[in-house]
């Protein structure tokens, strides 16, 4: 190609350039690099760029003009889907997070101070934020003591996530008070769960306990 270029060719060259470039390009930069062989007025360049913008209406990407130059970008309506191309895996929850969650589940409604009293360590704001952001716990009220601390409880999403109908379906812990028994029972729970994954929660071992308790409750009424 000589020093002449028609509008269609110019549009193609600009398109290829702006897509291939890692950063936005200003008209001056285009003139100084890919267009240096051609004598193109600034006005014509801007016209062709404008036409390019129109060409991409109704497509999945658009040509935009920013302070640092022209660049192609994806249309905002597809961002949600594009996010799935690069999912970020967040790290596993720490023991502190799991313990806090367990205490909120079993002792709700409960204040942070009460959790700290049982755990024997401070519960950081970060831990509470993690559980609140996950949508598993929420503040259901405030305790009328100095400072009016928030009372935390688990949410419906918490029950849904763990496949529970209600909190009563959480594994019972009454029988686990003795440490040795506790670990054995836990092991049994895991073993049963592993052999029959469809039966969680409420593995046979657990169900016995549950049935007893619930049964008793009903008879007591």
């Amino acid at each position, binding site marked *: 190609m000589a020093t002449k270029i028609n509008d269609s060719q110019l549009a193609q060259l600009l398109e290829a350039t702006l897509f291939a470039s890692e950063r936005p390009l200003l008209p001056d930069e285009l003139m100084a690099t890919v267009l240096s062989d051609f004598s193109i007025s600034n006005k014509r360049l801007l016209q062709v760029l404008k036409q390019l913008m129109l060409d991409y209406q109704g497509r999945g990407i658009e040509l935009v003009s920013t302070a640092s130059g022209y660049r192609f970008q994806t249309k905002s309506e597809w*961002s949600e889907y594009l996010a799935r191309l690069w999912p970020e895996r967040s790290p596993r929850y720490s023991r502190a997070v799991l313990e806090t969650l367990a205490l909120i589940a079993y002792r709700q409604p409960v204040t942070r101070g009460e959790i700290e009293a049982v755990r024997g360590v401070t519960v950081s704001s970060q831990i509470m934020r993690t559980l609140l952001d996950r949508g598993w716990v929420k503040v259901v009220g405030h305790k009328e003591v100095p400072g009016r601390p928030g009372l935390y409880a688990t949410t419906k999403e918490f029950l849904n996530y763990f496949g529970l109908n209600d909190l009563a379906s959480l594994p019972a812990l009454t029988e686990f008070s003795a440490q040795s028994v506790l670990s054995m029972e836990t092991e049994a729970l895991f073993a049963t769960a592993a052999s029959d994954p469809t039966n969680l929660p409420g593995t046979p071992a657990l169900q016995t306990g549950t049935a007893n308790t619930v049964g008793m409750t*009903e008879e007591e009424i």
Partner: protein
Amino acid sequence: MTTTASTRSAALPSADALSPLTVQPPLPLAFVRGEAVHLRPDDLYIPPDALEVLLEAFEGPLDFLLYLIRKHKFDIVDLPVNEITRQYMDYIDLMQGMNFELAAEYLVMAAMLAEIKSRLLLPRHDHQSETELDPRAELIRRLQEYEQFKQAATDLDAQPRQDRDFFLVKADLAENFAPLVILPEVSLADLVAALSEVAKRVKDFQHHHISKEKLSTRERMSRILEQLRAGQGYLLFEQCFSLDEGKAGVVVSFLAILELVKEKLVLLEQVQAYGQIHLKLA
């Protein structure tokens, strides 16, 4: 890349032009097989590194042999060993005469050519079968094979190539793009394990007998507190009960209210006897 190829090959004629036989200068600079080699004819100047460059122009003895064959429009399968050997030797001798260090492969090839030539010179015996291998056969096969891949390399180079013939493209992400974060998985077993960890650490934990009833009550406590918040801090006592939950539900709600009052989270109000009872956030 095609430009590169042609630039390269443009240097090739010099291989032939350098042949000692065509130049007639007064002062020979070297003697090769008795013949004078005049590297500096009157009107010409040879850059000292020209021969080296020439050597580098070939990818080895096979490449050079191919060049000689093609130059003289010989047929590979009819390899005229005498002529090729003579030319090849001239070249090698010239190089050695110039004290250039030749790659060993060139000398090996020279020996092979000499051997083929001598075997062809041996008188053929009548009893030799027609099918006896032509001493040139192996060399011909290698030349053909090499030529094939020499061409393949050229073809490959002509293939459109990234960052030379095409460039990868990329669009930026829209401003509203937010990464998808995959949250960690937790199992019910994890929760039980976590709680048992706490239990192990805290001795008096065993005094907190967490039973099914207790749990239902505590869950109901949470729910009532929520209802209270939704109702601006007030709730009718009856609103805490739902008939379709049956007796069990009523009992759980009642226990929850009592527990809430006991924990001073909720106040009960009754303006007049037998009047409506209100729950109020403490």
